[in-house]
């Protein structure tokens, strides 16, 4: 849990994030007597409905998202984000980030950001900022697999889809 050193740490885990993992992570902090506030964000795969399309005869729903990543780049960017977060919120005591790879069925957890601090403001603000930065900066890709076996590629909203739009 001593987190202030910014070595590259692996955030990726294969498959869904187990709620039990969240409990174990929380429980480990009971030895830190200076923590007063924990803020946790968890992303869960939604079974969004989609309309029919050229390659899809009728409306269907998301059954799972298959996540892939450009691992080395993602871990480098995560190290930068972690360093920036500790600089922005120096009172933050620890920050844990986990993201799933592979096929995550709807209803399962795929993303977990967890910050702890003496008072709630730092943990709250840091989690919001880190979640947004990860969505914008980490090269993680998601294939939405529909119940009818078709698929589409997920794109994060309100995030510039590429460093340089390519309209060639």
């Amino acid at each position, binding site marked *: 849990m001593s987190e202030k050193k910014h070595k590259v740490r692996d955030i990726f885990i294969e498959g869904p994030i187990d709620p039990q993992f969240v409990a174990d992570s929380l429980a480990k902090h009971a030895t830190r007597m200076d923590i007063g506030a924990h803020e946790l964000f968890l992303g869960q795969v939604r079974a969004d409905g989609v309309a029919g399309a050229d390659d899809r005869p009728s409306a269907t729903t998301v059954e799972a998202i298959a996540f892939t990543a450009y691992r080395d780049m993602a871990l480098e960017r995560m190290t930068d984000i972690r360093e920036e977060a500790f600089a922005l919120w120096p009172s933050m005591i620890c920050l844990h980030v986990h993201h799933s790879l592979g096929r995550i069925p709807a209803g399962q957890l795929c993303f977990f950001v967890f910050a702890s601090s003496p008072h709630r403001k730092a943990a709250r603000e840091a989690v919001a900022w880190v979640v947004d930065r990860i969505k914008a900066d980490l*090269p993680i890709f998601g294939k939405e697999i529909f119940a009818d076996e078709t698929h589409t590629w997920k794109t994060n909203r309100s995030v510039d889809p590429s460093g340089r739009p390519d309209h060639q």
Partner: protein
Amino acid sequence: MRVHLFGILAEKAGSDVVELEGAATDELRAEFRRRFPNTKGLMFAMAVDRKVVNGNQPLNGNEEVAMLPPFAGG
């Protein structure tokens, strides 16, 4: 040089790595578009040595180059 592909680009190219020739990132882009016309209209960023490129970056051929479709983490 070896170029790594991800997500929909890997799907369209049928592989997660392609050999492309070019002295700068724009040349690799153009070559990729020629080789894989089925990627027409798909936007992507490029990364050199694991950093997103802004503009056109010259290459010496020893870099780690990747083509990145829109991110979908979280």
